[in-house]
């Protein structure tokens, strides 16, 4: 399988504190990688680093074999990634305008924008909201728009930072079901950060457990969850009490 992103001895250090220390991590095409860990483990920082939105202090971070960093990446390459955060962060405008934004920034022709936005609105079941102001949407609707906006640009890698965590349970379940189907159909390589075992188990194929800025265990999701190592067992066992 084609390796898209590769990290080798990557560290992020702020003043004297090492925030992230990733000796080795690869993200291959079509993978749905979950990054799980408690609050403050460095999951979101890792996501920003992988999306070239934050500079690493040392080590090698490469995309398609080419060494890059947030300060050296070209706009063209940065546009190959897309991100959806926990908060939907929609802009003042219609749902259509919000989903179209990434395409508009890339100067995609209007006709093509319409075609793509219509497709993604239909896929995320929000076509009826097209002309509604995005700031008036419910949490679930807003998160659908957020995900559609991220998918509309056709990213090589999609980064998701706990996009379901602020939703109520029924809304979350419905959206996760739909998203799992959409992700499988589009075969988009996805890195999904979460602290929720149920979300990770349901959506991801591979899993990396992060504790204190380090990946303590990684592999197939089922393997990691079935056979946690000494470092991850106590963290995972706490979760397993509830699931």
């Amino acid at each position, binding site marked *: 399988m084609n390796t898209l992103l590769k990290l080798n001895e990557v560290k992020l250090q702020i003043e004297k504190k090492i925030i992230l220390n990733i000796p080795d991590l690869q993200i291959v095409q079509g993978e749905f990688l979950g990054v799980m860990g408690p609050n403050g483990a460095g999951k979101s920082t890792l996501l920003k680093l992988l999306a070239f939105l934050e500079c690493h202090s040392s080590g090698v971070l490469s995309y398609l074999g080419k060494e890059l960093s947030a300060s050296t990446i070209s706009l063209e390459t940065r546009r190959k990634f897309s*991100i959806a955060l926990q908060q939907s962060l929609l*802009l*003042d405008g219609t749902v259509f305008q919000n989903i179209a934004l990434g395409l508009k920034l890339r100067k995609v022709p209007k006709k093509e924008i319409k075609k793509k936005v219509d497709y993604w609105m239909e896929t995320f079941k929000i076509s009826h909201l097209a002309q509604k102001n995005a700031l008036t949407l419910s949490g679930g609707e807003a998160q659908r728009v957020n995900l559609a906006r991220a998918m509309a640009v056709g990213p090589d890698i999609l980064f998701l930072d706990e996009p379901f965590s602020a939703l109520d349970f029924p809304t979350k379940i419905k959206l996760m079901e739909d998203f799992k189907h959409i992700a499988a159909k589009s075969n988009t390589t996805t890195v999904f950060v979460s602290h929720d075992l149920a979300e990770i188990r349901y959506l991801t194929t591979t899993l990396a457990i992060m504790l204190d800025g380090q990946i303590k265990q990684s592999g197939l999701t089922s393997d990691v969850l079935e056979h946690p190592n000494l470092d991850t067992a106590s963290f995972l066992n706490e979760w397993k009490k509830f699931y």
Partner: protein
Amino acid sequence: MNLLVDGLLKALAMLRSGDNEIITIATLTAKVSLTSIFFSTLLGLPLGMVLGLSKFKGRRLLLTFINLGMGLPPVVAGLWITLLLWRSGPLGQFSLLYTPTAIIMAQFIVSLPIIVGLTCSTFQQISDKLLLQIKALGATRTQTLFILLKETKIGIFAAIIAGLGRIIAEVGAAMMVGGNIQGDTRILTTSIVMEVSKGNFDIALALSFILMSAAFLITGSITFLQQRKRNA
């Protein structure tokens, strides 16, 4: 109460009769006010954006001066401009004192800190996550600025309205640097002061109604732009 009614009726009569002097004064008022707000917005907006979005050494000190400038007494601004434009001053060779340009300069000085300060506050409220999201969507720096301008239009228009309010209310500096010369630098506020000093309260009131009507029209247009696409 009678005085108010008289003033209102006089204002209507002045406008209906097409009084040349009133038209000249009102036109000059609009011209200098709009010119000053144009230039203070042109400079204040980018300055406020930079101050609100960036971090650099001395930023806090600069902000303190800008906040101080928001309360700058117009007569102080007038005094500075006068010294600057005085025949022996640094810009004396341009003979700008007692001209509409001098009034524009004074109004620019008093409104600039308001626009910079309020724009800066508006931009400081933009969350880092929104900036990250916009960057992640693939926006260039220029595209980011345009998106942010659109997102903060309510705050920006509020800054412009506040700046304009200061300009419209300003009289001390205009009097000092303009001299209230009939047909040349007389504007509505300086005329009001003059008429009050002459004891012509009805004319002063009439002029104040004209001033407030003009202010209402301009501020109303900006408010319309600010609140467009919003219900109620």
